[in-house]
């Protein structure tokens, strides 16, 4: 047996860890410089946390006890918020499936995935709040503007996540389907989708959770839901009601997180 290596002449046993390269320290230096530089721009004044402590305590006291007298209204507006998130997410998932496939470089040629990706980048780059303001102008005040805003932004996010899952697939099953004389669409349906489905479901549920969170503030620009009440109570200095609304939001988001975690666990 000519290729057997014995432990005695194994050079790795005497090896010492390599010395840290000078670039290692440079990276730390740059990180500190960036932090110092940002301190100026962000007008960091931690001292005011101490000097204004009295004001803040007074302000915080206004929040308690929370005023739940309008709880029926709060709950029904919270439901509307969830309904906005549901439709915004579902429409986005439906559109993100073809767009995600069209952004995958292992499925389509570059002249398809490059333009698709750029459009998806644009969808993602603009925050939901900005889209909401634009849709309030075009389709009017109310939840529908919120649905459209979530729909556009989430489509951009999900198309990217979906295509990343598609690009990580094993090409064996796809070739197996191709070898039977199947069409390109059939290759995707039977070779690709079964492989990525668990991840796609997981991503969609996660986006639903974050859309519920986003939908709670869409009302601030007039796009319906509990955000409207939140905004009005803050502007009217009714902080006890603000506190009640915030508690409703926290409880709802927590419950949905737990629920969707349970559902996601089934698919992985």
């Amino acid at each position: 047996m000519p290729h057997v290596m014995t432990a005695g002449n194994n050079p790795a046993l005497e090896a010492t860890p390599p010395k840290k390269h000078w670039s290692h320290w440079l990276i730390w230096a740059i990180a500190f410089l960036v932090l110092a530089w940002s301190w100026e721009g962000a007008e960091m004044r931690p001292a005011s946390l101490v000097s204004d402590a009295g004001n803040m305590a007074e302000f915080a006291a206004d929040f308690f006890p929370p005023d739940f007298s309008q709880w029926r209204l709060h709950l029904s507006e919270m439901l509307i918020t969830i309904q906005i998130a549901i439709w915004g997410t579902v429409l986005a998932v439906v559109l993100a499936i073809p767009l995600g496939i069209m952004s995958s470089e292992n499925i389509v040629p570059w002249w398809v995935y490059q333009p698709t990706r750029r459009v998806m980048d644009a969808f993602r780059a603009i925050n939901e709040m900005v889209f909401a303001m634009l849709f309030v102008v075009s389709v009017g005040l109310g939840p529908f503007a919120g649905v459209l805003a979530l729909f556009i932004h989430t489509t951009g996010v999900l198309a990217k996540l979906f295509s990343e899952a598609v690009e990580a697939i094993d090409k064996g099953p796809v070739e197996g389907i191709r070898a039977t004389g199947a069409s390109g669409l059939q290759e995707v349906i039977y070779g690709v989708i079964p492989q990525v489905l668990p991840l796609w479901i997981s991503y969609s549920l996660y986006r639903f959770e974050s859309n519920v969170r986003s939908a709670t503030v869409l009302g601030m620009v007039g796009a319906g839901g509990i955000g409207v009440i939140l905004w009005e109570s803050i502007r009217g200095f009714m902080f006890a009601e603000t506190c009640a609304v915030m508690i409703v939001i926290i409880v709802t988001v927590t419950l949905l997180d737990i629920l969707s975690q349970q559902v996601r666990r089934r698919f992985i």
Partner: protein
Amino acid sequence: MDNVVQIQSLHKTFNNANRALKGIDLSVSKGEMVALIGPSGSGKSTLLRHMAGLTWGDKGGQGSVSVLGKTIQQQGKLAPTVRRSRAKIGYIFQQFNLVNRMSVISNVLMGSLGRIASWRGTLSIFTQEEKRLALKALARVGMESFAYQRADTLSGGQQQRVAIARALMQQAEIILADEPIASLDPESARTVMDILKDINEKDGKTVIVTLHQVEYARQYCHRAVALKDGELYFDGDSAHLSEECLTNIYGASNRAINSHEASTHSENKSVDLGVSGAMTFAEAG
């Protein structure tokens, strides 16, 4: 005898540097069972992939591949009819290439995609008759009792039998098997080779199989084609593969290891050939 496979001056270069095939000419007649042998990197799998149009040759050359009288590729371009041709070519992969998350019978039904109306295939609408045919194909390879199990719950040998059932479902005229037994234990390997031999003898289908072990080529295939460094080195009766010839193909040191492996395999064979042979025939019948 018709030529079911006709390959002319096929060249393939990977990444402008690695010349995998250097002008291959090959024809295979209907009903033959051909072993394609050679060391790894000799181009045997690449050649097989060209026959199904899964890979295409160098552009600009005069290379062409036709199967069952239809052009698969010419001068580095796939023919527009390649999909219809693939439907007539059953392809078996080393890694089985089943869809793991689908049931065994759904995987076999995929074999009909090339034959049935496109919209039906796309929407997974299969007739009772097609389901019956799929079960029949599974029975042929001894896997009918696993029909409703998920494909990834099966062992490697079982998955390869399902892959063969998928090729049977295609009602292919020719079976191309790319290292079908390289990932299998010796007993599953023999079962798979017995099934391929059975399909060749009983149904008269042409079978071309790439193999690592020369012993299997000698035992199962009348004709052997050996590749070395992308060129045809031997083409003839597998019984005429002399030791000298094999040493030239595989190199002296590899050959010594190879024949050692083969002799241990044949020892195993003499012990349990009776049992597994009988089982295979019961399943295949």
